[in-house]
């Protein structure tokens, strides 16, 4: 069985069922009233017939003809059973013929029906229109025949009225059903839009967003309150995490800063070469430590997406071009090539972050692609995306490491003796994600090829 899963489907189904019920009720009403009125007409015809036949038996055939003519009223008045409440005295139609079939009284019934009941007898109304009547016909002792007919007009009018009422009812049901479906749908959609808008804001990095509550105490308000409580909790956790990170940064940097100062001070006074070298090396190590720490915090910060607030339209091509030129001499010095093919494309972004991403990728090639490996970098616009490809023809990496190299502190060099902290590509990925982009390693002839896709300006957010 079809069970609708949308509000629209459910509303249409319930309106449809209501409509069918109304139609069934209407049909039943028509059926019952139809039969009731028919039975009443038959009953009246029977009573009238009995009365007339009694009258004939008591007063003779001529008197009956007289009475019938009187009751029939000639060609004036109405014919409907119950029509005009019988004010003109005509309740029914009459016809009386003699044994030879000659009409003695009543001329609104053109053809005499066979004896007994006739359900549909054609009649003429005094105004000249044609109609159908229910009739009771009886043979008379003198060989003649008497017919009494009741116009079925009342019946069909009653049928029409009930049918009309049923149709109006159906219309009202469908209309209210439609209106309430639309109104209900709007209400639900409006609230869902508020909820999804808030969720989107939080996805974008605005943790202060909350779902608006209209105080109606509705189910939506109740779920919104619960969701807001949850968001508040998450916000507090995020804040305290940031606070802790900030505190660690501060608390660690302050003493390290002092140690660094002291060593700098010592370095200036040192006269012994050995001591000088040791101090210099210690300062370098400490800077590396601070650098690692800043790198870790940096990746977390970019993942927090706060940078999106500062995004502006910028030329990705310019940024890639600048960074490529900055690194060209470094490649030249190692007799390695860096080839760039860059076409214009505008994206929303942060120039500093994008520069850092491109720089990290080029440094990754310099440090890890192997001796003499060349780099190729390209920017093309394809539809709604800017595609930045950075590849090298170096030693490449194993299939199973393809996802792993984006993880923090992951270094494929098992001895961990090469420079770096394993944060470069994590930072690249965080930056790409902040720009609503994707990064993947795609197959190439050898070496490593990264493909970064970032939505262009065309796609409005």
């Amino acid at each position, binding site marked *: 069985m079809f069970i609708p899963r949308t509000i629209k489907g459910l509303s249409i189904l319930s309106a449809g069922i209501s409509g069918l019920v109304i139609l069934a009720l209407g049909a039943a009403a028509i059926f019952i009233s139809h039969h009731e009125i028919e039975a009443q007409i038959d009953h009246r015809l029977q009573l009238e017939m009995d009365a007339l036949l009694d009258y004939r038996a008591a007063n003779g055939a001529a008197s009956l003809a007289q009475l019938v003519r009187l009751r029939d009223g000639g060609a004036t008045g109405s014919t409907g059973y119950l029509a005009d409440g019988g004010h003109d005295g005509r309740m029914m139609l009459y016809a009386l013929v003699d044994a030879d079939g000659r009409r003695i009284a009543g001329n609104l019934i053109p053809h005499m029906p066979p004896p007994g009941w006739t359900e549909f007898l054609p009649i003429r109304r005094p105004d000249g229109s044609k109609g159908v009547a229910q009739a009771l016909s009886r043979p008379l002792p003198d060989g003649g025949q008497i017919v009494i007919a009741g116009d079925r007009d009342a019946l069909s009018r009653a049928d029409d009225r009930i049918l009309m009422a049923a149709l109006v009812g159906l219309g009202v049901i469908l209309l209210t059903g439609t209106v309430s479906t639309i109104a209900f749908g709007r209400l639900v959609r409006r609230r869902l839009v508020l909820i999804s808008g808030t969720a989107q804001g939080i996805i974008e990095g605005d943790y202060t967003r909350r779902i608006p509550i209209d105080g109606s105490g509705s189910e939506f308000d109740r779920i919104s309150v619960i969701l807001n409580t949850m968001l508040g909790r998450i916000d507090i956790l995020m804040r305290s995490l940031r606070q802790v990170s900030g505190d660690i940064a501060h608390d660690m940097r*302050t003493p390290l800063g002092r140690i660094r*100062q002291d060593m700098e001070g010592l370095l200036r006074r040192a006269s012994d070469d050995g001591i000088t070298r040791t101090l210099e090396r210690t300062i370098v190590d400490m800077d590396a430590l601070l650098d690692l720490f800043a790198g870790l915090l940096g990746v977390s910060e*970019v993942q927090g997406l706060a*940078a999106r607030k*500062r995004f502006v339209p910028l030329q990705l091509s310019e940024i890639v071009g600048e960074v490529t030129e900055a*690194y060209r001499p470094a490649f*030249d010095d190692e007799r390695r090539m860096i080839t760039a093919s860059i076409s214009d494309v505008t994206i929303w972004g942060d120039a500093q972050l994008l520069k850092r991403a491109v720089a990290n990728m080029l*440094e990754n090639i310099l440090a890890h692609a192997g001796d003499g490996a060349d780099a190729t970098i390209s920017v093309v616009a394809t539809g709604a995306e800017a595609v930045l490809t950075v590849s090298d023809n170096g030693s490449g990496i194993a299939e199973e490491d393809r996802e792993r190299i984006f993880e923090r502190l992951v270094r494929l060099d098992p001895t961990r003796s090469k*420079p770096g902290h394993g944060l470069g590509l994590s930072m690249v990925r965080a930056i790409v994600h902040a720009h609503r982009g994707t990064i993947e390693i795609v197959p190439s002839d050898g070496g490593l090829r990264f493909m970064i896709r970032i939505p262009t300006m065309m796609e409005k957010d």
Partner: protein
Amino acid sequence: MEDGNERASAMRILLLEDDRETRDYLARGLKEIGHHVVLEGEGKAALARTLSESFDILVLDRMVPGLDGLTVLKLAREAGCQSPAIILSAMSGIEDRVAGLEGGADDYLIKPFAFAELAARLGALARRPPPGEKTESQLLLRVGSIELDLVRRTVKRSGRSIDLQPREFSLLEYLLRNPDRLVTRTMLLDRVWNFGFDPKTNIVETHMSRLRAKLNEGGAENLIRTIRGSGYMIVSSEQ
């Protein structure tokens, strides 16, 4: 080894720093290179100073008791103080840096830093010409026999034309604007490449060696000295 902490033309510096050791260390260093230093350890007092006295440069630590350094700077700026300002901060985040620069700071230095770095940045800030004041001397930079024409974008050494890449040109321009002063690697990354981060590859050195080679072609004396562990200095006196 040359000493990067060259003697500077004396400046009156307000130093706001709550950590006594750091404050003393910085003050001693700044005095050694010839500056006058006024010390404050608390934000409100520092603000009062900026409003009642005049300083060539404000050096403000961001996290101090009372008013934080950034607020001190904002309020001082609102009150009309135009002295160049450098924020010192242990907050290393990208957003923190942006907030600092947007808050009216001319430079943002993350703790801990080498003293030479601070001294070099102070020197560069002090020499920054007031905005809107362009004189002929600023369109033609000359140090020793090196001449750089900002309008024609040409470089000559002893009359000989030297063909430079755009980034080499900017690099030389920055050095020439700070003759006989230390400019650090991070200053150059920041001002010449607009890299707000420190790459692992020494892209400054790779460019610098090309610039030197071009300037010194034909056996001319090398005017761009490397100050080990700190940066570079272009010297005006050829021997």
